[in-house]
């Protein structure tokens, strides 16, 4: 394994920090690219709203995990530099600056571009309750009385009532209130009002159980109008604190450190420990405070002091806090013309709806390309296995599953039908811990053998094994994928999967589950490579093989598509391969710590990022291998966490037809001129300038092209089906002629 700091046989030491980007800044650059979609005038308005909402949601997660982690490091006095040569304190400093800029940009897009456009298109956002007309006031007050008031818990703070727990990510209204009849009590938080009255702090959480966006009755001209829930509450604050005067009230929101850790070796019951830690998440250190621009300084001081938050972690927001509501707004009825027409995932031609899926898999390996193709075959694979009397066992790994998962239901059904069902539910899947605990318990109740995950590792691989006792003996059917077993996200994330009954892969799949069950590693693997034990070495071997081929003047090329690239050993190997002449084309959606234009690499490395309507999620790896190309897919990115701290699987595409199809996926993405943005030597990303590229280069939007191709494929299949049902009359050829 390479050491980042060791000298290589190269003229250049590619382990040096100057050849790497900081991963946090690279992530912020990615979120900027998503924000770019919200700014793109070519994109329908409501899609732009959605992208803006996504940037807000992304940023929340970034704070809770990455910024929190940097703060932890700084607080612990940790000074080790990252691959880009920055200490945690230095990183925090630049991240803070960049985040403030990003937030500024978000609200600039919201206020200056999107709100006016919404108004032009017949949707008015009432930004403040003070802008409501009398008729609307009556409506919102009634709404408050009927729906909101019953679920509110207003809390005032005085000597007998301590500062309440402000829940992570919750939206709150903070207020300064004064008693209508002044008593002589004083409290730490008491201030004097301008009239000399003593002020107390009061707060109420905006309930998450109610919709954030409330539609007001339509205006006479048919314009739709909406107001946010916090505005309705703010208007009615006096009803919550009856004996008080409301001096001022403003929304605020906090973000807490949600990155919990515990000693798994010392934990007897992982499930209980995680449940305990989840509760603690609400108490994590506050790391970010968002307040409405113009908040009363006295109110801000109280909140800041109580939450012990730094001035630089306060974000003064020129608009509504928490823009994730825009993702809900995306679904408002009556604006279909402002969205892309919804794409329906197409049927998989190899599998008809009522087919025996096992028979189809026996005929040939089947490639699934989501969301262009439906996820139904994966669900049906489990459903049919659950009912099939010949099936002995079903084994599956689950990382993130949907709210009402048909896969969970099928697994439970299988256990009830007497199959041996083993499921590894990864309880440590970040932000899905609570969901997964619920699923784990449900599966256990149904009689499944549930493994909660492995000590010290997250099981991120996506694999299903169905063991079937057939006439010829035991046969194993395997699904391997790049994305989660989540029927909901399979409509939004681009992923690839393979259904196969290849015996060698079946053997390997059995060995994977044996290892996940705690048994020793197999004596050898046929085709699969697993992290954390073998995968990184395998990747490094494949990259180095290309380097050696290039040195021997044999064809050498790497095309790799992934979500993130930040493993220093892999990046160093890529630089070294490029310096020997290997052409490297990387399609990295998110974080990329590799730089382009690095000295000695002779511009052999090209990095593009595709951010489109679907979330690019597949991991595909192509190695030229001296003219005998090898194609792999994986659940892993080229990140240390994937290669060293997770259970991941790299699997080869063996079938020639499937290889062609998977190569087509890469090839189309490499041709994308619409959504692809290229990493520049200065770290910025730039789209292809069609004017510079020349008119002969036709515009390609990879995601749109895939949609069209799969629709055409399904239509062709349907047409063939119809033709097959048509009688074909025969004529006397002689007469015809």
């Amino acid at each position: 394994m390479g050491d980042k700091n060791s000298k290589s046989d190269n003229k250049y030491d590619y382990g040096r920090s100057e050849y790497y980007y900081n991963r946090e800044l690279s992530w912020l650059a990615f979120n900027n690219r998503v924000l770019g979609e919200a700014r793109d005038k070519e994109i329908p308005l409501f899609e732009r709203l959605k992208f803006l909402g996504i940037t807000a949601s992304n940023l929340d997660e970034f704070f809770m995990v990455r910024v929190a982690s940097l703060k932890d490091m700084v607080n612990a006095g940790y000074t080790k530099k990252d691959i880009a040569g920055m200490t945690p304190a230095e990183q925090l400093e630049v991240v803070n600056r960049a985040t403030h800029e990003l937030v500024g940009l978000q609200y600039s897009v919201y206020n200056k571009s999107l709100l006016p456009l919404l108004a032009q298109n017949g949707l008015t956002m009432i930004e403040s309750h003070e802008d409501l007309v009398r008729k609307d006031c009556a409506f919102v007050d009634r709404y408050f009385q009927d729906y909101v008031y019953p679920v509110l818990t207003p809390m005032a703070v005085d000597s007998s009532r301590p500062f309440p727990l402000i829940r992570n990510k919750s939206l709150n209204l903070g207020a300064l209130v004064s008693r209508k009849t002044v008593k002589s009590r004083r409290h730490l938080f008491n201030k004097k009002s301008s009239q000399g009255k003593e002020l107390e702090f009061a707060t109420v959480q905006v309930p998450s159980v109610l919709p954030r966006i409330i539609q007001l009755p339509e205006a006479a001209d048919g314009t739709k109008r909406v107001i946010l829930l916090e505005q309705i509450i703010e208007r009615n604050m006096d009803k919550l604190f009856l004996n008080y005067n409301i001096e001022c009230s403003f929304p605020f929101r906090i973000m807490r450190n949600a990155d919990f850790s515990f000693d798994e070796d010392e934990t007897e019951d992982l499930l209980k420990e995680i449940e305990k830690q989840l509760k603690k998440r609400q108490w994590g250190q506050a790391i970010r405070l968002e307040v409405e621009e113009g908040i009363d300084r006295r109110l801000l001081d109280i909140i800041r002091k109580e939450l012990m938050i730094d001035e630089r972690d306060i974000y003064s927001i020129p608009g509504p806090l928490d823009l994730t509501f825009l993702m809900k707004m995306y679904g408002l009825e009556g604006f279909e013309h402002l969205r892309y027409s919804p794409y329906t995932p197409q049927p998989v031609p190899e599998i008809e709806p009522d087919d025996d899926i096992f028979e189809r898999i026996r005929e040939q390996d089947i490639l699934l390309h989501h969301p262009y193709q439906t996820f139904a075959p994966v669900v049906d694979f489990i459903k049919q296995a659950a009912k099939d009397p010949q099936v002995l066992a079903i084994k599956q790994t689950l990382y993130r599953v949907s709210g009402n998962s048909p896969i969970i239901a099928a697994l439970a059904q299988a256990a009830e039908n007497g199959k041996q069902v083993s499921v590894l539910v990864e309880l440590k899947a970040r932000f899905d811990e609570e969901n997964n605990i619920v699923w784990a318990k449900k599966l256990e109740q149904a009689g499944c053998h549930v493994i909660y995950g492995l000590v010290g590792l997250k099981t991120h691989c996506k694999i299903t094994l169905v063991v079937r006792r057939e006439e010829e003996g035991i046969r194993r059917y395997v699904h391997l994928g790049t994305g989660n077993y989540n029927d909901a996200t399979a409509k939004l994330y681009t992923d690839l999967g393979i259904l196969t009954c290849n015996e060698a892969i079946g053997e390997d799949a059995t060995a994977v589950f044996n290892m996940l069950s705690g048994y020793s590693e197999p004596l050898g693997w046929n085709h699969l490579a697993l992290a954390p034990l073998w995968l990184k070495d395998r990747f490094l071997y494949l990259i180095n093989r290309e380097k050696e081929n290039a040195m021997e003047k044999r064809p050498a090329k790497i095309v790799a598509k992934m979500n993130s690239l930040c493993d220093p050993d892999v990046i160093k190997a890529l630089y070294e391969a490029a310096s020997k002449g290997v052409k490297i084309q990387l399609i990295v959606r998110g974080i990329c710590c590799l730089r382009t234009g690095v000295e000695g690499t002779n511009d052999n490395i090209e990095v593009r990022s595709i951010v489109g309507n679907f979330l690019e999620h597949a991991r595909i790896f192509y190695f030229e291998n001296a003219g005998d190309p090898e194609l792999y897919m994986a659940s892993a990115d080229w990140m240390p966490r994937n290669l060293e701290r997770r259970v991941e699987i790299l699997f080869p595409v063996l079938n020639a037809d499937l290889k062609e199809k998977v190569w087509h996926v890469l090839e189309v993405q490499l041709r994308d001129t619409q959504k692809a943005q290229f990493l520049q030597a200065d770290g910025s990303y730039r789209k292809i300038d069609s004017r510079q590229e020349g008119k002969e280069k036709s515009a390609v939007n990879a995601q749109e092209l895939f949609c069209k191709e799969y629709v055409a494929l399904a239509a062709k299949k349907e047409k063939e089906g119809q033709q097959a049902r048509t009688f074909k009359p025969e004529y006397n050829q002689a007469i015809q002629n």
Partner: protein
Amino acid sequence: MAYKTFAAIDVGSYELAMKIYEISNKNGIKEIDHIRHRIELGTDSYFMGKINNDRVDELCRMLNEFMAIMRSYKVDDYKAYGTSAIRESQNRLILLDQIETWTGIHIDALSNSEQRFLDYKSVASRVKDFQSIIEKSTAFIDIGGGSVQISLFDEDSLVTSQNIRPGVLRMREELARVSYRSYQLEDIVEEMVCDSLDSFREMFVGDKKIQNVILVDDYVSQIVQRNYIKTIKKGQVSTEHFLEFVDSLKKKKAREIAMSLGLAQENIALLHLSALMIKYMIKLLGAEMLWAPGVSLCDGIAYEYAEQNCLLSSDADGMPHDFEQDILDCARDINRRYHSGEYRTREREMIALTIFDSMKEIHGLSRRDRVLLQLAAILGDCGRFISLASVGENSYNIITATEIIGLSHVEREVVASVVKYATEKFDYYHIMDDNASLDKEAYLKIAKLTAIIRLSDGMDLSNRGKCSKLKVVNKNDELVLTVETNADMTLEFGLFDKYASFFAEVYNIKPVLRQKKSNI
């Protein structure tokens, strides 16, 4: 297609393993699953004499999981064997009973010779080239946790099979008590094994060059099978390349080796010791080719099961090798070592087997018992090497002290007892049952086989080949033994009752000796 699903469990000295197989007439033995759990039972039993309770708990937990896996495959049958760690545990019977109570899994403890024989069967049954390889001089090296078994083949026959201590786990534990530097390891290992290896060479190899080494072990075989050493073909490496590989190990740290070979770091110490042992054996034998078929005891268990239950067609997987002949070859080798006359034993074998075959319906003994009888016939005179008096007692001592590959301890005791009682006064059960390894069934077997051996001895007292033409007929409660010979049978007729009385007592049939003279 009809097939059986079978599970083979190996409770080894550092690993618990289970393999699931499908066995069918058409496809032979096909491995479906292989589950392994590392548990060093040998560390306890080799050095403390007992397996500690925590490890027993862990073993039971894992066996319960194995049971669940067996249910999931709906296995038709299973067989579980314990090897040296179980065998050497002083409280073996209590331990095995406990395991059966807690898990429902019955484990039989294998003797070393049975275990090695199964390993050997697994190689012979799984590998098509086996027959052609052993036609050349070949050493079969089976490295276990407690000991190493070396068997020599020449021209398709087993020449000898010897057990040498220590095995890799035992060696690792012994080394743990020695303070040494890493560069000294090779020399220390050499010191530990070379004395036994030199004796082996002197006694059994001489100047002969052993061309091939067939290896059964848990670590080096993996490396060879996974092509980490340049292979000639799957599983075969030149000894030159192998020795280069062993040399490369000493330059690396355990972590580096683990990373480069894709092994768990905890296995590296045992890999290294295994590799060093093989290195010294290769050097000692002068072998040119190392062949590691990557089979395990479980494969042998499955083969044995398939064989016993007639699940394989005669041509399935091509099984030309005669394993019973190996056991007999091994016995003949012992005879040679003790300078016992081959001609005499051949005659005795023939008479005993003719009698045995003619009274199948009466004795109710099995084909395996026939092999035991033949072994007793072969080994009957080996005690003469010590003294011409008390040949029975001396032979008994030699046989019980010698490992005969393929025999369990009980079977070896049966053979030795038959040899002993062929000439000594028969001890009835109340005396014989002092020997804890013999139960009533074994006792009766000894009695029945002794009766046949005594009778056959009585038919050619001077060992002059008088009975080369023998016909045996069982009729009217008499066993008529007709010898076609012109030799003088006066002595045999005169003393026949002395040798036949025990037969009559055991079978309640009167043996009658008749002579038919040939026309001159």
